[in-house]
């Protein structure tokens, strides 16, 4: 039941706009892949190409060992023959059918025996904890309940691949948390290869085994959440992932293994970088001290934003502004002098010109 998805050089254009630009991805069996990016980055288009709802303008797609799309041979299987399930952003439950009919639709089309259909309806509703709602119309349920039914509708016909297009974005924050838990559980139990589209980087980090970050149709990085977070391939990924945002400092490699930021210098591995660079420093990787410490750079606490479990501190040094995250409620006062120390091992250096991560 575990299925590999291979996408080779996929391109999709809408008029003059290239929505998906030469994307290649191999999604291993059982992966929970998130397509992540700002709106208009092509992530939904890519998903729709996978589903067969869009006709790409180049490339090929394999689901399992079945070639479902190939531009060069002109082959394209209709969505129904690709053995995948799709959950839509707005649920797309058929408003004129009750819950049981919504679920049995695909099964009836497969001409499944009645008893089996009944069984499948029960099972799938149980999986999403919606037993007892068989006789409701979609409009008689809350958004969260509709979302669960939409999931059940997909689960009932047991597709090989789950596709989900921002399934949680229409839910309120509380419900979204609950559903994330459930979805992750569901993936864990079914083990089905899942492709999940979201613009919410927190959701991507929480849910996925792999993340593919996209921008303007181009795949930026395809990696595990850990790698994406700690070793972003370029400035766009670094900036897009993380909350609060990563600190990006313009610097200059003055000599080997030393970066000059104007007011201070940090010595770190610079590999073969020269000239202008940008240092990416995660807010939680900066250590704050209220006393001068060796290697500490003196800043002024500009604003303190405690939020219970942690606090965000905005520090200023001349024109330079840094965001620091500390655990708990910070005792630092506004305008107080603070000393920041940086752990060179956690700093990523990017080439200023190309924006690419500088690696060995």
């Amino acid at each position, binding site marked *: 039941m575990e299925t590999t998805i291979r996408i080779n050089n996929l391109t999709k254009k*809408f*008029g003059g706009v290239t929505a998906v630009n030469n994307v290649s991805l191999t999604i291993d069996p059982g992966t929970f892949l998130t397509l992540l990016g700002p709106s208009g980055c092509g992530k939904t288009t890519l998903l729709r190409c996978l*589903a*067969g*709802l869009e*006709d790409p303008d180049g490339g090929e797609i394999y689901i399992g060992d079945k070639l479902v799309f190939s*531009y*060069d*041979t*002109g*082959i*394209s299987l*209709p*969505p*129904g*023959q690709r053995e*995948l*399930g*799709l959950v*839509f*952003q*707005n649920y*797309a*439950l*058929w*408003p*004129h059918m009750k819950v049981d009919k919504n679920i049995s*639709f*695909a099964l009836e*089309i*497969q001409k499944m025996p009645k008893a089996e259909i009944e069984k499948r309806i029960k099972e799938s509703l149980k999986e999403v904890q919606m037993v007892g709602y068989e006789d409701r119309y979609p409009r008689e349920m809350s958004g969260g309940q509709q979302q669960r039914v939409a999931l059940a*509708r997909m689960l009932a*016909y047991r597709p090989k691949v789950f596709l989900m297009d921002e399934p949680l974005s229409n839910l309120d924050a509380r419900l979204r948390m609950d559903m994330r838990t459930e979805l992750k559980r569901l993936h864990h139990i079914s083990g089905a290869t899942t492709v999940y589209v979201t613009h919410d980087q927190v959701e991507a980090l929480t849910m996925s085994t792999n993340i593919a970050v996209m921008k303007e149709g181009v795949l930026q990085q395809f990696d595990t959440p850990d790698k994406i977070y700690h070793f972003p391939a370029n400035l766009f990924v670094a900036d897009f992932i993380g909350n609060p945002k990563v600190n990006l400092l313009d610097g200059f490699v003055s000599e080997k293994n030393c970066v000059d930021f104007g007011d201070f210098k940090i010595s770190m591995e610079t590999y073969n970088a020269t000239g202008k660079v940008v240092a990416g420093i995660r807010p939680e990787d900066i250590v704050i001290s209220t006393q001068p410490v060796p290697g500490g750079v003196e800043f002024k606490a500009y604003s303190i934003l405690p939020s219970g479990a942690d606090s965000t501190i905005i520090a200023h040094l001349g024109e330079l502004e840094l965001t620091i995250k500390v655990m708990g409620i910070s005792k630092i006062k506004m305008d107080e002098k603070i000393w920041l120390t940086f752990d060179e091992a956690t700093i990523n250096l990017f080439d200023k010109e190309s924006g690419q991560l500088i690696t060995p």
Partner: protein
Amino acid sequence: MATTTYTQAESSNRLIAGFRRFIRWLTKPHVVLSLIMLAVMFVMVVIPLYRLVLTTVTWQPEDLSRVPEAVVGKFTTFHWVRMLTGVLSRIYTFTPLQHSMTVAIGATLLAFLIGGALAWLVIRTDMPGRKIVNQLAVLPYIMPGWTIAQAWLVLFKNRASGGTPGLFEYLVGQSPPDWLSYGPVPIIICSALHYYTFFFLFTSAALMSIDSNLEEAGELMGASRWRILRKITLPLVLPALLSGFIMTFSKVMGTFGGPNILGTPVRYYVVATMLRGSLAAGDKADAFVLGIVLILFAILIISFNQKLVGTRKSYETIGGRGFVAQASKLRNMKTVAFISVIIFQILVLVLPLSLLVLSSFMLRSGDYSLSNFSLQHWIGEANTIYNNGEPGVLFNPKIYATAWNTIKLALFTAFFTALLGIFLGYAIVKGRGTRLAKIVDQLAYIPYVIPGIAFGAVYIAMFAKKMGPLPALYGTFTLLVIVSVAKHLPYSSRSGVAAMMSVGRELEEAGQVSGANVWQCFKRIIFPLTSSGFVSGFLMTFITTMRELSLIILLVTPATQLLASQTMFYIENGNEQMANIVILILVLITLVGNFLIGRFGRGSSLKKGLGM
């Protein structure tokens, strides 16, 4: 050698791939539907228009008597020269055109005053009984357009046309002046009383969408009510008013019934009546020239409207966002306003119908003595003295046949229109952004700019004789259905698009992903979800077809007579009581239909049905 074979194989592979992609595109449901719709509209709209133009620029058999050297079928500017510059052009073209414009401008202004004032009272004030007025205000438009004209004659007829005197002369003892009985004044008044509904609907929708805070802001700054109306409200509803102006203008230009009843007897011809006259006289090409003049005029007006309003479909620019409008306080004017509105409603609804009823009971028209009252025209037996020997309407097999024919036409038209509407809506909505869908959309819009009577002329040009695989349909019931469906295309595509828009594309895609094929998607998802749009489109078309006259007047024959055209023939033969009874029956059917729409139309309204 090896390389050549390789490239050959490669290029043939590429060919196969391209072919597969093309087939896939071609078999997409919206593409298939678009192509079918294009073919349908090509036959129903494009070819007839082409034939219409062609007829005017080629010699016709009937020209031989005037120009012996004419070669039938060869190109000539004869008809255009004759109609536009010849000695007769004044009589045939320019005077009717001038009359049409006089009538259209007058009726539009009057309709604006009535409709605008009524809309303001209903939407923006605290006048009592606004709900009822809102319902009643649209009724005159639902009734056949020449009802009021015919009632006008019952009241104001004088001896100018050589007939019997009207009720006015009987009561006052003096014959009404000619200008009051016939000609532009009564035509303008009667047309305005029919078409003011446009202004009412447009303006009330626009007024409803204005946030009353805007007006209150003016009030807080100390502006007078008149100033607010002038400086704030009017500019905001201006686009809607312009649309109303232009719609009404172009409708009146193409209307036939009123001018025929109130103008033709005193030789006051408008383009529409002149067109029919030319056709009756056998000058087909001349009639068609007039038809093209009407069409060009309509196109001019509508493109002018689009310039002004800025969108192609000005009639859908007004979104009913439905702010809770704050009522303007009429204070002591409240009762005055209410009473005048009620009097107005009585004048345009109750009085005309009562006059028609009254007249229908008179054995001989013009004699209002008690002894002259009779049920002869309703239930009398055939008597050679009356109505050319026809029995009373209720016992008249001809009327039953005509009524049945009318209902059949309305049913067929409504069914095909609603069905085409769903298909058009699907093709246009699904293909949104593609050139194909745009062409379908625009083609479906063409009948909108062709005035009813000109559309009839177009169809005569097309189906008078056999052409290729298209049979000569003139004189058949089928032709009436086709022309009615074609004329409704713009409305059906509008309502189809609206119905389709309400079905999110995900709903169909969810079906596709679930493995449903095209037919299963249509049957189980799209048809059920658009059924209410289908029903409302069906009912609306049913009513408008029942009372349509301008469109079919040129196409009916004794064998395919319809109630609407039957009234006109009765009037022209001097059997006005019979005509009035048939009009009353038509009114009754349309009112019942309107009631049914309100009852079962599930959210459909006259407004939607008119495609506004």
